[in-house]
């Protein structure tokens, strides 16, 4: 094709672009642009009507200026005018401008939609495609409102051109993504699914993306696509490379379509129909076989396309996780790639193997590649590949190879890139804890970690080693000895000083028998580091010193001397000063007994989920890091599980079964007064203010809540469950022998935030993974916008994890969103569907009003459908206080002195949704004698009256 003599050459535009390119400086460029903008503005404002060509040229210039990164605040109208031109180029430029520059809430959207409507009904396929491209590019809600019902018709109509079908499919997909509530497939479903059989490969390629997306949302309605997809895939896989003509890419038949088909199949479990399944397994085998065949071309495009299909097939095999033979073959194939000369393949093999490592069928096969992976960690030149190798080592680690892997990761840390050190540290810390057989190894590993990469050792990591040492008495002496030795180093990291101070303050006595580590030697060693440390560490050391006074009375005079000196007792830092003063006083006036009680050894920590794991989750969790809010997330990270901080109340009643370490279930805790126990703990609370979420755990509602009355509600019984939460926001949502789900929620206006706590109730000890593959899906009602992150697929025995849901009420609703949990326990997949207790009344804002106002509004809401009334028998206590509490819990304002009958209750509130506010008035008339109620609701929206009435009738 000849280059760029396309007849529409806009000379003015070319000249302008040349001018810009010739600008020697940024200033010159801006000057030139401003000149052009002024020119265009005057043309647009001028008296002379511009012809289509000029308009097109100027709009195109504006677009160019915008794409250079400058703001454009005019020209939109001219672009919209171009849309209705009957010259194709003009229309095309108009659409391009709109696609790039018009945001959805623009005033022009109505005009644009009009033009699009005209083009869609023009029956000119080129115009139709332009219009569809524009909708797909902008994808605003307004466009969805205008076209969501029209496009499915175009998509399935028999006389629609193929190219238009393709655009329509993807256009609909885009609209579905922005406004799923507006795209209703309903009657079209089956015809859309059958597009998989379309003769035209391009139509299938486009349609399958739409079908995949719809299947994820409505798997049942679309499940016929599975067999169609399998037979289509089978035809492609077995076709010769020339069969598919232009859809063959470098000798690979239809690679894009193949990948999309394999992706679609990943929305479903393995096919139940034996024949279909057999055919699919055959396809997968063929794909694996082809990987072994000699390449048909030396071009990298050939191998890329072929391997793209292979990797997608492996993803499907992993997704099914049921064909041991295929899993092992996949693993072997990836093993070959680990040593491939293409960096890209090595990278992908490492990445894909990570998921294979979590399958019970292929875990062992993955482990055989350990040497290669370690080698990759050491020798790969690209940090992103090394990162993958580290991830894979982490994934393939188990008890059998933990020592080797941890050692390799530690030695890699010495030279690791700064960008991945923190994550590496967390991983080493987790593996060391998870697979520790003897705790001296664990302590050595963590201290090594601090030595090698102290700057990257976060608080969670050193809190954790202290927690574990405190909870395991068999390692305390060893830990004391090791930190003592580590502190001998002339320069040791401040984190080492923290751990050393804490451990020697607690367990220094265990090594004090050796004259080389006598109490005074220990103290002098610690104190020699004091002046180099930051304030929090110094504060910790002061606490260690007062503990020394208790442990070793012979050091009292020396330590008092230190506390008394001006640099302590008059320290400009108020915390240090206070500690020095108080400890000095405590040591001089308290009797030995009091001192011994106050400064007693720390009681064991009640175990929670390792805070390190939470930290890693924060770092790695999918979606955990936002594009713009990266730093905020990090800051907010903090101590999800409280790390070592601990409320006095939980300290005094640790539940033995919750003790992850499974020791000291009869620890002499009662002897330790809570206040004394937290003496050292306060250091932690200063080290970093606990995130508000920590308080959620500390109220202990999960551990102390009485067993729920309904132990395992099925979905059908779940309405009862829903009723439980109408007037309250916190409690236990679900409980069985394995899992407890607790809820805490808060609402403000049309927004809510719900914390879900998944607690693993089994008390299997240290490091046993119990749950994996926890998939949590919210059946998003279109009326609610529920956002959340996936949780870490792993909850250890006795631990709990938290998931935060952000809920936005868009408009009023009656159903509850569904929570679907799939988890694996002992190999068996458990599936659980629950209704989330989000009810419309949660979005109430209380409204105070006088009697006069109330009845005036009551009268205004007098249309019959606005009122809902129910007369029902009392199911619960009719006590005034109980009723009041319930009505307040409902979220409305309880109005006194409104109803002439003081026995009656009236309430008022406004339900806040994004789209509207709904005023609600409520009247509850109890009849104590008959044990009956009459409940009347009047709302500005009749569906709300009915729903509230249903919900409330269950409450009294």
């Amino acid at each position, binding site marked *: 094709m000849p280059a760029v003599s396309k007849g529409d050459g806009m000379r003015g535009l070319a000249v302008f672009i040349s001018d810009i390119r010739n600008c020697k400086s940024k200033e010159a460029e801006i000057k030139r642009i401003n000149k052009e903008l002024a020119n265009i503005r005057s043309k647009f404002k001028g008296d002379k009507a511009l012809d289509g060509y000029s308009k097109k040229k100027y709009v195109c210039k504006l677009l160019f200026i915008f794409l250079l990164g400058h703001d454009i605040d005019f020209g939109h109208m001219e672009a919209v005018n171009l849309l209705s031109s009957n010259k194709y180029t003009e229309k095309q430029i108009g659409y391009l401008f709109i696609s790039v520059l018009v945001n959805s809430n623009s005033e022009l959207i109505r005009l644009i939609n009009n033009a699009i409507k005209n083009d869609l009904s023009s029956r000119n396929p080129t115009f139709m495609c332009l219009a569809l491209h524009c909708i797909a590019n902008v*994808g605003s809600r307004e466009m969805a409102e205008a076209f969501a019902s029209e496009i499915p018709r175009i998509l399935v109509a028999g006389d629609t051109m193929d190219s238009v079908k393709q655009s329509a499919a993807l256009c609909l997909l885009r609209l579905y993504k922005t406004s799923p509530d507006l795209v209703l497939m309903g009657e079209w479903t089956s015809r859309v699914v059958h597009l998989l059989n379309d003769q035209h490969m391009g139509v299938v390629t486009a349609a399958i993306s739409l079908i995949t997306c719809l299947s994820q949302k409505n798997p049942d309605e679309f499940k016929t696509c599975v067999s169609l997809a399998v037979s289509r895939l089978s035809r492609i896989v077995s076709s010769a490379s020339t069969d598919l003509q232009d859809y063959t890419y470098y000798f690979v038949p239809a690679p894009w379509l193949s990948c999309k088909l394999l992706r679609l199949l990943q929305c479903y479990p393995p096919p139940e129909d034996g024949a279909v399944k057999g055919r699919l397994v055959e396809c997968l085998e063929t794909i694996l076989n082809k990987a072994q065949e000699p390449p048909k071309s030396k071009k990298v495009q050939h191998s890329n396309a072929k391997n793209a299909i292979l990797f997608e097939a492996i993803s499907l095999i992993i997704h099914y996780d049921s064909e041991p033979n295929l899993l092992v073959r996949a693993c072997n194939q990836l093993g070959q790639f680990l040593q491939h000369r293409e960096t890209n393949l090595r990278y992908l093999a490492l990445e894909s193997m990570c998921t294979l490592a979590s399958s019970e069928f292929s875990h062992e096969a993955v482990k055989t590649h350990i040497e290669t992976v370690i080698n990759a960690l050491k020798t790969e030149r690209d940090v992103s590949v090394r990162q993958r190798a580290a991830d894979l080592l982490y994934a393939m680690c188990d008890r059998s190879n933990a020592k080797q892997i941890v050692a390799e990761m530690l030695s890699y840390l010495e030279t690791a890139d700064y960008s991945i050190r923190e994550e590496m540290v967390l991983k080493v810390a987790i593996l060391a804890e998870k697979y520790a057989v003897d705790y001296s190894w664990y302590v050595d590993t963590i201290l090594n970690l601090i030595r090698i990469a102290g700057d990257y050792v976060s608080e969670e990591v050193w809190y954790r080693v202290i927690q574990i040492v405190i909870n395991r008495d068999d390692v305390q002496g060893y830990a004391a000895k090791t930190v003592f030795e580590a502190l001998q180093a002339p320069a040791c990291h401040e984190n080492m000083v923290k751990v050393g101070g804490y451990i020697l303050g607690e367990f220094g006595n265990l090594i004090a028998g050796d004259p080389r580590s006598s109490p005074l030697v220990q103290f002098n060693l610690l104190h020699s580091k004091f002046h180099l440390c930051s304030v929090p560490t110094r504060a910790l050391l002061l606490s260690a010193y007062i503990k020394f006074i208790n442990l070793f009375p012979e050091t009292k005079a020396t330590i008092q001397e230190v506390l008394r000196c001006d640099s302590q007792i008059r320290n400009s830092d108020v915390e240090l000063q206070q500690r020095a003063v108080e400890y000095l006083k405590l040591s001089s006036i308290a009797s030995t007994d009091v001192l011994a009680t106050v400064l007693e050894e720390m009681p064991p920590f009640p175990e929670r989920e390792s805070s390190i794991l939470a930290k890693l989750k924060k770092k790695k969790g999918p979606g955990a890091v936002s594009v713009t809010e990266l730093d905020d997330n990090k800051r907010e990270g903090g101590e999800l599980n409280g790390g070592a901080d601990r409320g006095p109340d939980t300290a005094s009643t640790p539940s033995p079964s919750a003790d992850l370490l499974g020791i000291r279930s009869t620890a002499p805790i009662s002897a330790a007064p809570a206040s004394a126990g937290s003496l050292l703990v306060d250091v932690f609370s200063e080290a970093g203010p606990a995130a508000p979420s920590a308080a959620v755990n500390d109220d202990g509602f999960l551990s102390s809540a009485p067993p729920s009355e309904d132990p395992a509600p099925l979905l059908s019984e779940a309405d009862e469950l829903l009723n439980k939460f109408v007037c309250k926001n916190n409690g236990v949502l679900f409980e069985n022998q394995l899992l407890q789900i607790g809820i805490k929620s808060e609402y403000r206006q049309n927004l809510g935030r719900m914390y879900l706590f998944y607690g693993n109730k089994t008390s299997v000890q240290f490091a046993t993974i119990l749950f994996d593959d926890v998939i949590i899906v919210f059946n998003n009602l279109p009326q609610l916008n529920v956002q959340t992150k996936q949780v870490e697929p792993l909850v250890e025995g006795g631990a709990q994890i938290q998931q935060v849901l952000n809920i936005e009420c868009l408009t009023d609703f009656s159903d509850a969103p569904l929570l679907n949990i799939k988890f694996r326990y002992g190999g068996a997949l458990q599936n659980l569907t629950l209704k989330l207790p989000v009810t419309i009344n949660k979005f109430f804002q209380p409204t105070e009003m006088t009697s006069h106002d109330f009845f005036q509004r009551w009268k205004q809401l007098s249309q019959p459908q606005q009122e809902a009334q129910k007369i029902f028998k009392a199911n619960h206590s009719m006590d005034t206080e109980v009723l009041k509490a319930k009505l307040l819990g409902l979220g409305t304002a309880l109005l006194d002195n409104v109803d002439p009958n003081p026995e009656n209750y009236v309430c008022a509130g406004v339900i806040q949704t994004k789209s509207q506010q709904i005023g609600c008035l409520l009247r509850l008339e109890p009849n104590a004698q008959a044990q009956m109620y009459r409940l009347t609701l009047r709302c500005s929206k009749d569906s709300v009256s009915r729903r509230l009435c249903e919900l409330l009738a269950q409450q009294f």
Partner: protein
Amino acid sequence: MALCLSLIPDSRQHVHRFTTNCLLRCMQFMLLFSRQGKLRLQKWYVPLSDKEKKKITRELVQTVLARKPKMCSFLEWRDLKIVYKRYASLYFCCAIEDQDNELITLEIIHRYVELLDKYFGSVCELDIIFNFEKAYFILDEFVLGGEAQETSKKNVLKAIEQADLLQEVRH
């Protein structure tokens, strides 16, 4: 989306477009930039503000340009996967999501290059600068809404040629 910040302190308004929400899985954006870091083409398949787009572009261009020639074509960047390839003076760079297929994305880039090459006749950076609108039109025929629409080179070029014919007739 008007989120109340006091209730939701970490203000994740922007996150959701990039989360693992399966519905949003597709190519997120494609950028073409020169070795000097000049942006030559930008196509966004997720709604983002101009400010966010500029920030992403700036950071990504910097990250990719800093990589050495023999390094692998994929990298993790925030919670996205970046697939990029350099053709002469131009970098082609796509952002996809966690579960997406890197290799097939690499070939999307290649096919787009082939399309440009065929249309302009041995394409160079200048062609894309001076005919940026054509580059957009070709991309729209090939990839729509972040998904491959028509992978046949012939069919894409046929559509573009037909459009070109239309304008010649009318002019």
